[in-house]
């Protein structure tokens, strides 16, 4: 019997195997794929996101939940695409630290949290050239390109990437982040978004891709903060 509240609770507690199992079981019962995605996974993540915002949980718990979310998504993903509803498939974000720069702690955190919010991350690692960004965006039909830079010497390369991406005629939202950056800089280089930390980065990604915003109602009641 489908009990999304239990599934949400498993997600909240980061029990990735249970989340995977519950996703499979629920689908086997014949519940619609989108319902499982929304009620079972996204709703659960919304709760942990809220709790994180209100300091009730910390980064490790969020990442454990994100891992569980990913386990569930892995089951759902092929079906969504097979369903002929690619627009509902997890949106792909291509992420990388720009050429010359190897600071990746912030970028990795952004990636992990975004994954937890249901995005699919293609991580190009560090020292990434404009060409690699473009190739990955094309290969994965990405919705967002996320760039990170921590050095004043490398942040300028973001402009090169933006210019080359635009010149290649790619329809993609470009987001940037990293300690030396600012909204002003992002505007200056023609990026579509800037965020100062990982939580606001995820908000930004959702906004830019108009991710279906699900309020954590109903099922959230069943979830108890630890």
């Amino acid at each position, binding site marked *: 019997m489908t009990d999304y509240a239990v599934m949400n609770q498993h997600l909240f507690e980061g029990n990735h195997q249970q989340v995977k199992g519950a996703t499979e079981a629920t689908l086997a019962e014949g519940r619609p794929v989108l319902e499982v995605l929304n009620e079972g996974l996204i709703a659960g993540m919304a709760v942990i996101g809220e709790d*994180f915002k209100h*300091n009730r949980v*910390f*980064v*490790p718990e969020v990442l454990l939940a994100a891992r569980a979310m990913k386990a569930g998504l892995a089951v759902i993903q092929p079906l969504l695409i097979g369903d002929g509803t690619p627009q509902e498939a997890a949106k792909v974000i291509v992420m990388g630290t720009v050429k*010359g720069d*190897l600071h990746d*702690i*912030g970028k990795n*955190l952004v990636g992990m949290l975004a994954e937890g919010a249901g995005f699919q991350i293609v991580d190009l690692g560090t*020292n990434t050239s404009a060409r690699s960004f473009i190739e990955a965006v094309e290969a994965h039909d990405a919705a967002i390109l996320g760039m990170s830079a921590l*050095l*004043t*010497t490398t942040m*300028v390369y973001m402009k090169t990437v933006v210019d080359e991406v635009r010149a290649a005629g790619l329809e993609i939202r470009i987001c940037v982040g990293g*300690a*030396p950056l600012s909204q002003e800089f992002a505007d200056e280089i023609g990026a579509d978004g800037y965020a100062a*930390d*990982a*939580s606001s980065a995820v908000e930004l990604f959702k906004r830019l891709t108009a991710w279906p915003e699900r309020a954590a109602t109903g099922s959230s009641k069943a979830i108890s903060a630890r």
Partner: protein
Amino acid sequence: MQLLEPALVDRIVHESMAVLENTGVLIEDAETFSKVRALGLPGDESSMRIRFPRATLEQALRDAPKAITLHDREGTPHSHLADDRTHFVPASSALRILDRKTDQVRDPLTADFVEYVKVCDGLDHIAYLSTAFIPTDVPKDIADAWRLYLHLTHSKKPIVSGAFTAFGVRPMAKMMECFRSDKQDLIDRPMSIFTCCPNTPLRWSEDSTQNLIDCAEAGIPIEVVPVLLLGMISPCTLVGALVLHTAEVLSGLAIAQTVRPGTPVAFGGAPASFHMRLMTNPMTAVEVLRVYCGYAQIAKHLDLPSQAYLGLGDGKFNDAQAGAESGIGMFLAAMAGFNSVSGPGMLDYVNCFSLEKLVFDDELAGQALHFARPTTIVDDLPAGPLIEELTRDGHLLTSEHTLAHWEDELYIPGIMVDRTNREQWENAGSPTQKDRAAKRIESLLADYEPQPIDREFAQFAQDLLRGASSETDFTFPSIGK
């Protein structure tokens, strides 16, 4: 100060060597990996990991000098980094500065850097300088070398610096060689320490590895500075963190010694914590202070000069938090016997430099150094005669003992530390700390003595930098007189 039992220090060193023997370090670039392997260090091509046999590590420790003597621009010995001798230095490479006139954070310019060098050159307790922040009015690919140029043209003191790119060290070494008779002379009489950071956990990037190699070849002393983030890219516990930290430092040391035995290397670090809610990297967290005190012991045990990022603040302004964090850091650094302590002037997780903070920190540094002096008997034992004199005269103000020693013993801070009583303070116009900082900075600027250099050097260096930049269409900002 002893945080670790000697047996535990031994065990940590042992474990860290085992980590280097078994796991080794990843060299993140194939060509650089080959270079390191060609030095004779065993490596595994498929994983690009270099492993360090224990004998290699032990040999490296024997080859590494126990002290670093930094010389000034003229070649005169200036600071001797050894034993428990502590030197305070501004922290390095801030992205921004806190403008002292507007209290706004902004991008630094060449003029700011020149002002900083002039102020810092005259500070009493800051032993030598650092490339504290990055001027943004020159092409970014030569900003690292431009800072060094500005320093060399305005101060004779040694400097802590570093490169931002794989080939950044060479032009900087060339500039310094101009002040020595030849390459060997720069090796014999170094004027700078360069920071080289492993990429925690146990990785060396192309840039940092190349910087290590170039520094070792040019004889530039190196501070190996791992940046652990506790709980994120390091064990969150003290001993686990120290094993990782020590392994990373020893890997840098061993590579440098393999390039040129005898390369001076400081056991450095800039460990930070990871804030599990805000996702920031507090440099002054209390658990991080323990990591510092721990590795100071390890450095001493290995008989290596040591370096720390202590004496900075993580807040945004020169407020109570800044004072407390900086003061605690500097006192611990001096008590732990760190040799080179980068921190003064820095705020906001090494992101923002403040000249006002620097002049205040100079006073904290003075006090920390005063506190950490070895305790000696100074004509005060047996105490009988002195006590007799005191009970007889009711005071010791004019006693021979006081006259002989008070200036060494009683530390009188400068104006940055308020020691007035309320009336004295009101009579002086009730100056705030900010007012006093402005006054101190203005007086240091007024007292600054130019340190002229040959015109030829300026031309040589500017040509060198122009050649090193990928940009062609720019002029160097004027640096005044």
